[in-house]
């Protein structure tokens, strides 16, 4: 039932006003991309606290791409707060010896087909190269997939 777990899973947080319709536009163009990508529609990614990202890695998600509206964010101050949060997550990832490239922040618009495909393919190549995420704190007790 499950996917080929060897290649790992990529979580994509896509904003409902920009990146999520952008992903649909890729679908309308019938452009193929790796299947191990799971797109969650979000209002603004600023909702997610630092631990959400770390929990995802802990649960076994190999890569996360946050596709936001960038500076066109409809919520006041949210984009900057979010950029700061991602910096914090990078700090936590460093502590856990996680490759920082596993978390990627990018702006995708409603018709950004090519940038979307590039981001997804880049991340897929990366997690293939890196393998599953192993957090330093858990290394000793790693008996889960």
């Amino acid at each position, binding site marked *: 039932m499950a996917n080929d777990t060897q290649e790992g899973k990529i979580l994509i947080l896509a904003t409902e006003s920009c990146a999520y319709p952008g992903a*649909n536009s*890729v679908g309308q163009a019938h452009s193929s991309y790796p299947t191990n990508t799971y797109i969650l529609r979000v209002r603004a990614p600023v*909702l997610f606290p630092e631990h959400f990202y770390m929990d995802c890695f802990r649960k076994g998600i190999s890569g996360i791409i946050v596709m936001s509206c960038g500076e066109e964010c409809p919520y006041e101050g949210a984009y900057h*707060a979010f950029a700061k949060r991602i910096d914090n997550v990078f700090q936590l990832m460093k502590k856990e010896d996680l490759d920082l490239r596993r978390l990627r922040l990018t702006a995708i618009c409603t018709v950004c087909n090519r940038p979307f495909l590039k981001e997804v393919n880049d991340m897929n190549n990366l997690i293939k190269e890196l393998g599953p995420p192993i957090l330093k704190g858990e290394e000793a007790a790693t008996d889960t997939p």
Partner: protein
Amino acid sequence: MSETKKDESGEEARVGVYICHCGGNISDHVDVEKVAEAVKDIPGVVVSHTDMFMCSDPGQELIQEDINKGNINRVVVASCAPSLHETTFRGAISRANMNPYLYEHANIREQDSWVHHGDPATAKAITLVAAAISKARGLKPLEPIRVDAASHTTVIGGGIAGLRAAVDLARNGIKVALVEKSPFLGGNASQLDRVFPTGEKVADLIEYLTSAVAKDPNITVYTCAELTGFEGYIGNFKVTIKRKAPEDEATQLMLKQVKGAAPGSFHPFVGFYPGDVPAADEEETLTTGVIVFATGFELYEPRQGEFGYGENREVITLRQFIRAMADAPATTETLTIDGRPVRRIAMIHCVGSRQIPGIHEADENDYMNEYCSRTCCTATLQAALEVRDNYPGTQILDYYRDIRTYGHNQEEYYSRASEKNVLFFRYEPEDSPVITKTTGEYPLKVTVVDKLTFNEEVEAGVDLVVLATGMKAKNIDSLVEMMKLPVGADKFLQEVHPKLRPVEMANGGILLAGTCQAPMDINESCNAAQAAAAKAAALLGKGFVELDPFVALVDPDRCEGNGDCIAECPENAISMTPDNKAEVNPALCTGCGMCVAVCSVNGIDVQGWGLKEYENMVDAIVKF
């Protein structure tokens, strides 16, 4: 993962899953029967169906039947993109008397069958549906938030834009408090004579509006008034209006000019005088649903010595020139001003507009006007033509950077000016015209490097220099601070988005009309004012404002009252209750979720889009 979830009614979540073939669009690549089979045993799922077209009436009836039979209380549809049919399915659920927010959509067409093929596409569909199920189980019924809205607006500013907005709102049946700082209505427009491109008297335009204001019982005019208090939110603001006797010298002088005149009359270069100047301070607090800003602009005042201004009485602004022309005899061979014949006039464009860092001088606050003031080119040519038409013995020299006669019927002013022998010189900002005193035939000399004649330096003696000064944002700092209004780098009030929401500020229920937003001419100001009035009418027409239910909600059992969310909220939507729990004002919350991330005890979440639901979805994605 498998603990029983209950909704507020205490009922266990019973999910119905409906998977669409989309006539092959999905089922050609995704084995939909296999998906239905795979998800039917996920905890909470009670039915799992497929249908050729879920969006068709029979497809929708399938869902409604299961609801009516009492089988299900959550719905997951797996089909095309939610932007196409989310509202369709929410509607179908509503019609079966179930809360439409107990619904989740899985996008297995645009984000699966159209981009993936074969077994991996089917596997992904299973995962996406499983994730949707895990979210659906945690959903709670939501109701749109209703806020009572007063059928009342406060319009700040009694210039053309404010008058226009007030008249339209009143005609719509909405009460208006029109608040004007000075004793006069008409604003900056009162300082004009005739308007381009129609040549109408500005007095007629202002009186058209003021007579409508006077006649309409829905409008209360507060002159000599300012907003001194403000609180509340869209639909239900409380504003305090304070009237006091005018004290500043300029206003006293203008009042002197209208002394003895009947109230309700227009006075050229002063304004429309409704009468009624308060002798003592008065204060009133009103409940108002929407506030319209129509505070207008200020004219740029040239610096001492800028193009000789302030140093030579022969250097004046365009506004002063319009005033002087109005007092001059209607037609003579040569224009005379203050008894002096004016044989030749230099008109200089872009004074205090289009300033460039490094070339122009910044003001004492290190600020300069980098924008175009939009109206001065045509206004300058209009004045130039009036001179050429009425005083053929007076020559015009026009010094410009670009002639921006962009508006409807305005290009004619440019072509007619050439026909009427207005002489044009084009300058670059780094080679601006230089004005010097002379003792020769003319009192002043203008020197410029003319780009139209291959950078030749051209000198000309003139009797008068007219500076086409631009528009500046008016200083309304006290209002900006009191109401926390967004201001752009150009110091004008800032709209949410120039195309998506051009007459709204980020503060809900506070609208923009006219030149407080950016330079505009009179018809553009009127359009903006009417657009703002339309927005206000839409907001207030129903008697209540309905807001998205996707707002933050505090879980009082978890909240420890540390106030982190309050500090994070950009909308000031969260406050502390007396028993030290955070509380969200849903009327102010935009549902951005900034508070959710900073709460260390998960005590606040966005309804319908909660962190908890996302965590559940990630669990499902990892598991399936």
